[in-house]
């Protein structure tokens, strides 16, 4: 059940009525409804792993309670390790097992040892990277005393399986979502209306931008040999936009739907393509994942390495971003994707410019020339890594890079889709960035857009977006890129 399907619309409408009209007086019943809806939502996509989701919830629920209860540090640590091993173990088994076997086999082969371990035919449970990170953060936060273990199993199970963000995030930390589940929700008219705006914007980004970009980028990445460098550049450029529009569009919808049922879940994107350096980019891109790894990987590592000054920091950050890369799946392309980003930080750390926070074009309409160059430079660095992110293998990515840096860059790009739809795609990208630029200080692009206009004009603007989605949107039932992670 993708957010863009009619099935989801009916599912959510039914849920909405039950939630606000039938069960509104009782928090526990409301949570039970959230839980049942989440399990239904999950089974719709893939019922085979529902039992896994439930087992993981049961185990972590009890681990949380006993970690908090136990007074002996040894037992506390033991329980925590059980939880961590379960979380990382499940991830490792489903997502990384075959990768390790393949790598071992290659090493053995290189050493001339004839010992072939067989890989398993593993199907990856949907959303596993997302819900595993939730349970891990829950246990770690209890261990550090940042939160209390919840004794309400419905609350905890709903936290693990919360349907708006179950399959592709944002990854909510326990301290954000659990207190909201424990409290009585009050319907906030303004927040819900804003949620609707955010959903509308998410739909626009997904159906108009991302899916139309995909029709151009897919053929380029699937058969790039022999194409001129200029085409490859267009491919890399549009793919970068596509990933952003796809994933941030999805996140906008997830956040919007959550707001309709009275939850404020973690923000996932803060207009990353307006970032002026890589550090700022990562503070704005997939925020729920980066803040997760910053808290549970980077901070402990940097504390451990704190006596080695900048070298320690560099090491911590490269490890940190490599883990961000691996999180996307066990492929060398993902590892390199993270590693390259880690390396991008090195000059920033050495020159101490990493955390100089400066808002771009504050109180101004346009950025300064310098700011513009910074944005362009950051975008190019990011675009460079999306090539390897999209490629099937590292070798394929290297071919792409080699062909990209050739003289044929000075030629007219060759695009498979017709002129009309290519123009529409470029124009809609331009409009998207213009609107996002004007709303860059807000939570999402439409949050304040056009508020000074008279109501009928504003409504006409919203109708125009609906119209654009219907006419120019691509409705081939394309999956979201991040639903595979």
């Amino acid at each position, binding site marked *: 059940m993708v957010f863009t399907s009619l099935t989801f619309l009916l599912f959510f409408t039914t849920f909405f009525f039950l939630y606000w009209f039938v069960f509104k007086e009782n928090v526990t019943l409301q949570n039970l409804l959230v839980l049942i809806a989440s399990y239904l939502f999950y089974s719709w996509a893939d019922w085979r792993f529902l039992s896994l989701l439930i087992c993981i919830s049961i185990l972590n629920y009890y681990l949380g309670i006993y970690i908090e209860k136990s007074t002996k540090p040894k037992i506390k640590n033991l329980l925590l390790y059980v939880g961590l091993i379960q979380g990382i173990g499940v991830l490792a088994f489903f997502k990384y097992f075959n990768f390790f076997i393949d790598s071992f086999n290659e090493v053995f082969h290189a050493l001339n040892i004839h010992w072939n371990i067989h890989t398993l035919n593993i199907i990856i449970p949907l959303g596993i990277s997302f819900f595993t990170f939730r349970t891990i953060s829950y246990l770690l936060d209890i261990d550090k005393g940042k939160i209390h273990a919840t004794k309400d199993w419905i609350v905890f199970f709903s936290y693990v399986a919360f349907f708006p963000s179950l399959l592709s995030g944002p990854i909510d930390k326990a301290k954000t979502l659990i207190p909201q589940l424990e409290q009585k929700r009050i319907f906030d008219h303004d927040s819900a209306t804003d949620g609707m705006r955010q959903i509308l914007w998410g739909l626009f980004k997904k159906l108009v931008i991302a899916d139309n970009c995909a029709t151009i980028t897919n053929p380029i990445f699937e058969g790039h040999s022999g194409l001129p460098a200029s085409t490859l550049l267009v491919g890399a450029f549009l793919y970068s936009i596509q990933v952003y529009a796809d994933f941030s569009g999805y996140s906008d919808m997830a956040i919007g739907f959550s707001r309709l049922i009275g939850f404020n879940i973690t923000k996932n994107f803060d207009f990353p393509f307006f970032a002026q350096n890589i550090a700022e980019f990562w503070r704005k891109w997939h925020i729920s994942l980066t803040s997760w790894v910053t808290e549970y990987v980077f*901070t402990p590592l*940097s504390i451990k390495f*704190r006596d080695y000054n900048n070298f320690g920091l560099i090491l911590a950050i490269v490890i940190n971003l490599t883990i961000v890369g691996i999180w996307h799946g066990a492929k060398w392309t993902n590892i390199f994707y993270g590693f390259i980003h880690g390396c991008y930080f090195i000059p920033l750390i050495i020159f101490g410019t990493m955390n100089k926070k400066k808002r771009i074009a504050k109180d101004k309409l346009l950025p300064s020339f310098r700011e513009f160059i910074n944005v362009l430079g950051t975008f190019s660095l990011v675009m460079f890594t999306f090539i390897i992110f999209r490629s099937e293998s590292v070798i394929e990515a290297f071919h792409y890079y080699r062909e990209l840096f050739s003289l044929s860059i000075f030629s007219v790009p060759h695009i498979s889709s017709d002129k009309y739809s290519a123009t529409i795609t470029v124009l809609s990208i331009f409009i998207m960035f213009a609107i996002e630029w004007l709303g860059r200080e807000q939570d999402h692009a439409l949050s304040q857009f056009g508020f000074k206009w008279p109501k009928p004009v504003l409504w006409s603007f919203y109708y125009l977006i609906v119209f654009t989605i219907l006419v120019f949107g691509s409705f081939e039932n394309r999956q979201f890129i991040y639903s595979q992670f």
Partner: protein
Amino acid sequence: MDRNTVLKQVNDIFIDVLENKTIILTDQTTASEIDEWDSLNHIHLVVSIEKHFKIRFTSKEIQSWKNVGEMINSIMEKISP
């Protein structure tokens, strides 16, 4: 050394490391209130405090602080046995 002196000295370290003269710390101050205080500068702050007071925190201690007050408590425990 009493608690207020420690707080004052920590305040000076913050001003120094974060290059922001307007910082005034209280026990309740948290990282979200000071723009420059992020995960990276946090490490610089810890290292400077350790050097200044000639003490050594454990990883767990550092990660358990929720506000400046708890940080001062950890320092007090180490310098006044």
